[in-house]
């Protein structure tokens, strides 16, 4: 009974939605009924079109994430550890951070056209800042007393990094990671919707041209599912890596 409780509201909404379509309260061109959406899902999966588009979008998302997140992580570590590096780059980065990366879309299209680079660039740029800021914050908030203990006990600089600084910064890095994943999907949706010749966003825009509202709804749901999946994997990783922390320990 307890486990069924959270499902009651969504199921009721689904039933009401189906009923509203059935009794003609909801026009199909506005919102097709759940059964039609399910049928559309079945159709595009069978043709292989869906799988291909998911593949393309996922690749774009994670390639951009790897580039932007990687640079953000390295710079965050560097600026957290080296005051010189921080003085040199941090204020510049903080200024650039104020520009919403999606505002660059026209410029990016001018530079790269509507090719893959444009989408990679936007995703990388969007993901960079949350990872950078949270890595930097994580390194800065590492317990000074632990650093002093490491030195007093003869740990090498390398050992101090891998056994004190990195694990100490990890909780904050995970915050950046999960936030970055959210930005990654959001950026990709916008970029693919504006300009693409493949991917889930393209599938949606293509379906819109042919007034296939059911396929549009399918693409939206796929985006939601992918976002949820990525977040769940990140959470699982977080729980495993931070098992030492009572906050994350499984009850």
């Amino acid at each position, binding site marked *: 009974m307890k486990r069924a409780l959270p499902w009651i509201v969504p199921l009721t909404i689904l039933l009401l939605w189906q009923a509203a379509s059935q009794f003609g309260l909801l026009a199909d061109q506005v919102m097709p009924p759940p059964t039609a959406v399910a049928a559309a899902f079945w159709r595009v999966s069978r043709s292989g079109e869906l799988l291909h588009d998911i593949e393309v979008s996922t690749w774009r998302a994670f390639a951009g994430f790897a580039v932007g997140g990687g640079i953000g992580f390295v710079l965050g570590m560097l600026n957290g550890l080296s005051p010189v590096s921080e003085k040199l780059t941090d204020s510049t980065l903080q200024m650039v951070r104020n520009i919403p990366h999606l505002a660059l879309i026209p410029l990016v299209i001018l530079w790269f056209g509507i090719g893959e680079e444009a989408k990679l660039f936007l995703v990388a740029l969007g993901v960079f800042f949350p990872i950078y800021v949270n890595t930097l914050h994580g390194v800065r908030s590492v317990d000074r007393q632990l650093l002093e203990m490491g*030195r007093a006990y003869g*740990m090498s600089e390398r050992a101090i990094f891998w056994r004190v600084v990195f694990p100490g910064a990890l909780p904050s890095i995970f915050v950046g990671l999960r936030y970055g994943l959210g930005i990654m999907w959001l950026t990709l949706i916008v970029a693919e919707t504006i300009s693409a010749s493949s991917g889930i966003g393209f599938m949606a825009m293509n379906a819109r041209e042919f007034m296939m509202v059911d396929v549009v709804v399918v693409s939206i749901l796929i985006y939601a599912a992918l976002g949820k999946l990525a977040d769940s994997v990140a959470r699982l990783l977080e729980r495993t890596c931070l098992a030492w922390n009572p906050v994350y320990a499984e009850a």
Partner: protein
Amino acid sequence: MNLSIFDTVPDTELRVSSAGSAVSLRGVTKAFGAQTVLHGIDLDIPAGQFVAIVGRSGCGKSTLLRLLSGLDQPTGGTIEIDGRSSGWRDRTRLMFQEPRLLPWQRVAANVEVGLSHAPRGADRRRLALEAIGQVGLSGREQEWPAILSGGQKQRVALARALVSHPRILAFDEPLGALDALTRIEMQALIEQVWQDKGFTAIVVTHDVTEAVALADRILLLDAGRVAMDVAVDLPRPRRHGDPAAAAIEGRILDRLLGR
């Protein structure tokens, strides 16, 4: 690791003199900017002695310990350990007021931190388990520090300090944050490992009773100078409420409170 030497020497007297280091300070000063914290300290601590340092807050106790454990360098004067003025850092260990365990490492791995200077290998784990046994935490090797009590964490910190068999063990108010009962247990444990191992013990404490209960000798630090140097010639184990101890305690307190 030369621990096997100590383990096979049966004679307690011999063990004491071979396991502890003699400390000698000559005109040691320490200044932070314009503020001079230690003013030319001269001090000789024989190998294996248990010294307690008491004094008002801010009189330079922690600063002195940091110099003795090689964490800081004196502004002037020399520190010699076993007659050597350098290269002795590995012989000393410092225990802090807080346990300072790595929360993301289990108990055994935390104790192995004490062997950072030694080569990796199975030996490390064996020595760590041995030290954990010495502080009475056998069976807790695979716990996270977060689930241990304050006293247990401080025991792990003690094991981490002991595992490298230091010749000098310095404690900076190690029991200050513990409740009264745990304190007494920890005092007994520190006294016992000191008697077992024979290292030179230097304990900073704000508790004069604790100093009298544990130490062979009590130094009172005042404004960066040794203001009082009292021998505590009482037989061990010492009992709480011994009148001779109370007399020593009274003398030191009088001086501390400026009476």
